[in-house]
């Protein structure tokens, strides 16, 4: 069975500087993959590349192949024209993007917006359209009568559900959700995640979930990929990666997360900040901030398999135990 989405060597540059620097990713049908990382690591750019929605100032290269179950043959996203892409977007892959809650048109009723999305991509009679809208709203857990409202008459959580409904409008096989719960309270967040989980089960939806919140990814995803400075530094089954990380960045990131019931002390923070694309360090990009860096790290570590389905881009992986770190002062610059 071929993968639903196959990304090979994706590169995105801005003025020659790398934003995404050689990303490979495979998504199987119905699978949920999480893309984790801090802002600037390239995860949103990767998502936008799949939809070919990057602004013209960014150059994209690499092979992206989408093979939806309903299509007759594989779709080469990287080779499609803009017009060709308009047949792919929303029908086969759709996007719930960051800050989506505020992206609804304030002067259109909600059901009108869903109707517009459907009509742009499908021919459909008005009765069937009405039925479809109601079905979509129900699927995301909203009563269909809410469709008559305007965006500002809905709460944040409800608006987010509308955005999910919009993404599902044309029954795509892949949905990319970029930080879908960031602006939401913990309860609303849990509700939306439960919704996404249910949709996956009911509709066989594949999901790329982008978030900086590891907890959110742990809840919803099967596999996870950690990005840093435009590259994937670790990937694997979510439970394996989170319980036994194989890259120092992942490890330090996980350490900084408080987990209720565990140790209450704050771990020493990762000093410094991610590198600017115009000034990438040679070799391993995490080297300036890595407490375990050695001379060897001046050569680029490739992403290689280090365990059951788990891969990491670190010369010293696999890590069976993590040595103690000297105080944060000893490593890199602060501030």
């Amino acid at each position, binding site marked *: 069975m071929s993968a639903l989405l196959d990304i090979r060597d994706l590169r995105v540059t*801005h*003025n020659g*500087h790398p*934003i995404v620097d050689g990303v490979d990713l495979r998504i199987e049908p119905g699978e949920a993959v999480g893309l984790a990382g801090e*802002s*600037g*690591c*390239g995860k*949103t*750019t990767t998502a*936008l590349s799949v939809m070919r*929605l*990057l*602004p013209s*100032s*960014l150059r994209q290269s690499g092979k992206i192949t989408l093979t939806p179950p309903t299509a007759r043959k594989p779709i080469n996203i990287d080779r499609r024209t803009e017009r060709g892409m308009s047949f792919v977007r929303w029908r086969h892959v759709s996007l719930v*993007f*960051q*800050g*989506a809650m*505020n*992206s609804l048109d304030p002067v259109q009723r909600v059901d009108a917006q869903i109707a517009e999305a459907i009509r742009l991509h499908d021919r459909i009679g008005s009765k069937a359209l009405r039925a479809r809208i109601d079905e979509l709203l129900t699927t995301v857990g909203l009563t269909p009568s809410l469709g008559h409202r305007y965006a500002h008459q809905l709460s944040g959580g409800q608006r987010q559900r509308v955005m999910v409904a919009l993404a599902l409008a044309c029954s795509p096989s892949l949905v990319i959700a*970029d930080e879908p719960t960031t*602006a939401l309270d913990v309860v609303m967040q849990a509700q939306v995640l439960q919704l996404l989980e249910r949709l996956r089960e009911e509709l066989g939806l594949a999901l790329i979930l982008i978030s900086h919140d590891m907890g959110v990814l742990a809840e919803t995803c099967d596999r996870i990929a950690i990005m840093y400075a435009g590259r994937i530094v670790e990937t694997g089954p979510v439970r394996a990666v989170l319980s036994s990380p194989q890259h120092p960045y992942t490890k330090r990131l996980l350490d900084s997360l408080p987990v209720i019931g565990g140790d209450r002390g704050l771990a020493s923070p990762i000093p410094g900040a991610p590198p*600017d*694309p115009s000034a990438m360090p040679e070799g391993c990009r995490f080297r300036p901030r890595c407490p375990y860096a050695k001379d060897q790290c001046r050569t680029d570590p490739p992403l290689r398999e280090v365990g059951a389905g788990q891969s990491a881009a670190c010369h010293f992986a696999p890590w069976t135990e993590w040595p103690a770190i000297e105080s944060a002062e000893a490593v890199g610059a602060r501030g």
Partner: protein
Amino acid sequence: MSPEQAASAALIPAEAAIEAPTDEGGVRHLLLGTWRGRIGLGIVAFFIFIAIFGSLLAPYDPNASSLDTLAPPSWSHILGTTESGADVFSQLLVGARVSIVVGFAAALISAVLGSAVGLAGGYFGGWTDRSLDALENWFLVIPTLPLMIVLARILNPSLWVLIAVIGLTSWAGTGRIVRAQVFTLRERAFVERARALGAGDVYIIRKHILPNTLPLIFANTVLIVAVAILSEAALSFLGLGDPTRISWGTMLENAFDSGAPSAGAWWYVIPPGLCITVLVLAVSMLGYLFEEYVNPRLKEQEG
């Protein structure tokens, strides 16, 4: 903003906006780096120069009459003569002063008045704002030219009256804009932080609100300069200007009164009109340039 953030910002409204660069470098680049800036600045600088040195450069006394009435351009009178035999070119040079002085002075009054009202109303809100806003609306709604004409008629025409009249009728627009900006600034975290420090209202207005409103006031005022220059020309043309001074508007008034257009004396009619047009265009060009610069930054700052 990282390019990656720019990519998503292209699709979604920026939630955490990065502040734009400060004015210093930006304004200099605008003025000297863009062709609009250079042309606008060049023309305005040229006319200011004329305004200062015009009377020294004039070949003749602009008021001196001679027997050579309505003579077309010649070697002795580059732009010909008026109906009383005075040199058109000299009048043109001297007339620049009135336009520039009235334009800038009136705009200054308008800016100060508008800013004061906008700041007070926008910051204090409540009753103060409601009454000031009503006042502003009154001035906005009244058609400016008729109001100017009425005021100029009632008061004895002189340069100062002219400046006052134009200033009084144009401040409301600035006031409106300033008020809106102050409303937004008032709620910003750094203003709240200043309050939490114990800063008083006057201090906050002086140190936090005003500096962040100045770019806007400046951009708006430049446009008012253009309006003021045109208004002066219009009022003078209608005979409401200062009769003791020569301005481009009075030149046009005299030209039309003495039948120059029908006599075919183009050298009398076209130069003042052309000067007005070119100066106003140049000032407007600069004004819009500044406004464009200030506005997208405003949007970015809103976050």
